[in-house]
């Protein structure tokens, strides 16, 4: 795509990839356990979530929770504590399973029977860019009607395809869409 930024931030612009902002917002909307995984309350809650049924356990194993039933049992009964590496893995697996579980519901809310959701795009921060190089980049809003690809790749935990999906979406902003590849925030409600 010719509009893509080649060397973002070279002149001091600040921002994050639009798709990262979308993923962040979707995570926020998905909600979940707020307590950090390092606290006992946090990791036990995550483990309980992951072992609630055989289906979720299967999903967790598919997502990378490769420990034996014995170990899981020991963790859940409080005999042992997961190691640091395992805590990290539990968090990742929890996030993946949670995303997967929430995705269907979230997708329905965002698509709203084809009416879509209004998305606000807050442009990148140019405060550190030298004055002559600053450009007028406006705050934009757009209605996104089809969220299937965005939510699908977010749920699958695939940042590259999410990025591609988001880029295909913001092309609808018009010829200046390249200015919105990096943003400070992307806001929408579900």
């Amino acid at each position, binding site marked *: 795509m010719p509009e893509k930024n080649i060397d973002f931030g070279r002149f001091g612009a600040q921002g994050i990839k639009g798709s990262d902002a979308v993923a962040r*917002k979707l995570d926020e*909307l998905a909600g979940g356990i*707020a307590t950090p995984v390092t606290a006992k309350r946090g990791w036990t809650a995550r483990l309980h979530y992951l072992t609630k049924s055989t289906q979720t356990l299967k999903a967790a194993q598919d997502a990378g929770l490769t420990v034996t039933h014995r170990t899981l049992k020991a963790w859940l009964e409080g005999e042992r504590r997961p190691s640091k590496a395992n805590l990290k893995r539990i968090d990742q697996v929890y996030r993946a399973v949670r995303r997967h579980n929430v995705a269907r519901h979230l997708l329905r809310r965002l698509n709203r029977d084809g009416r879509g959701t209004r998305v*606000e795009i*807050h442009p990148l921060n140019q*405060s550190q860019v030298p004055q002559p190089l600053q450009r007028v980049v406006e*705050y934009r*809003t757009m209605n996104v009607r089809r969220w299937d690809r965005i939510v699908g790749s977010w749920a699958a935990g695939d940042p590259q395809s999410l990025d591609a999906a988001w880029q295909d979406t913001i092309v609808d902003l018009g010829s200046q869409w390249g200015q919105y590849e990096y943003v*400070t*925030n*992307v*806001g*929408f*409600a*579900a």
Partner: protein
Amino acid sequence: MSDFDAIDSLLDAVGPEAELPPCQVRRELRERARLSKAQVARALGVSPSTLSGWESGRDPAGEIRTKYAYLLDGLNTKLATETATETEAAPAAERPLTSDTAATVTPSSSPDPGQDEDGDDVELLVVPEPCVLCGRPAGQRVAGFAQHLAPADCQPTATGAPAAAPAPPAEQPTAQTPKAPLCTARPVRATERSKGPARHAFQEPSGPVGLIREAVQGVLAEHRGDVDAATAALLKRAIPDAMRLLDETRKGARYDVIAHPWIPDILKKQTARGADQIWEARPKWTRHELPPGRHEVTALDINGAYLSALKTHLPLGQLEHSTGLAHDRRRSGVHLITPPEWEHEAVLPNPIGQRDEPGPLWVTEPTLRLLLRLSGPKHQLCAPPQIHESYTSGATENLLEKFRIALKDARDTAIEQGDTVTLEYVKAMYSKFVSTMGESNYNRELYRPDWMHLIRSQAFANLWLKALKAHDEGLAVVRAMGTDELHVIGDWRRVFAEGRGVTEVKVKDTYAAGTDAGEHAGEGE
């Protein structure tokens, strides 16, 4: 040949000049037609000042004169025919008036054109429309509904034979109405209005107030008039309805409501149940010592405090960080300040509320403006606050103004009519709108914790200013609490109006307090 064509057209142009009525008549015609100078000038393609010239002595010439004459002639005939029908219909009562102004081209209208006897908006219809009561053609429209004015004309179709007593035909639409002369003043309006479908009866009411009324009526109908059930149902949908109302009131507005801006960390909750770092300056103050003697204390309640607080300087876009700058009146947001010393704790609450910790704190725009105002030359109650850091954005006071006025109007009407359902609904709308506009899961469409803090602080600042007003007028302020509670000693009725409007106060409670002749009586609650 072409030369001769040009000459011919010139010769055609040279003819008798169009006749124009005298100057006063020109003006009168225009005014009676309720046309402004600007309107007429635009239609003729001249400037309004030129038109004033023509109406006060000068005469137009050439082509424009023909146009002007055509316009005046048209107005003249229009007004003349309409007044003729009126006078024909009206009995002798109207005649003397018309003969008074015989000098003018057309008979004049009733002396006070803007006023109707009963204040109703009676319009004449050129083409009769079915009466809302009996369904037969009626020549007048009152408050948007075509209807007969005399009960004799208006008979339900079931009883009155439709063919036997036909309604007034189109040629004589006002023949049977006693009130018809009232309408002579607005001939133009009457014709204009009947054209479009805009004022037809039983159309959906448009606009924000209509939205509220519609919702209440719909829910009441759904619950078959069960007031409690309807109120409960309305309270449940108050938040989405408030958002819809907000969208409605922002139509065609200058600024977008930006619902999901980037939010600085100070405005984010530290933990799931915790608070963020903003100090809202909630007053929670009781006077330490009462003036000597026994007093009757009145607890006053400020009506619709949050509703009034919707009028505040709200930042529009994303908050931008700045340090060490002076206060900018055109921006609004949150500021890290060191508050000034407050030396009037004995008689007035501290404008930053009951703050236990010393040192700098994050306050919102209304609190800062209050402090700046109090430190200004007019009051000189404290030193100016020191601003260290700010997160601000360009601000406007009018962002929620239409929204506020729509709710206020609905509230006023509900109070007037004793309509508790609408009253509760409106109250739930504004209070829940304010309380959920931050990081609430109940309203995800708006994510503006900054606005929430600002509106609350504005309510507190408003209460504080009421306390100051009471103090300045010689009342003793005993307690200022929360958003709407103010306890005073003295004749408060000369300071505040009593009532239920948003500018008025109501009495919550009265109690006696103070020491009785040296002996400590304590506070009666």
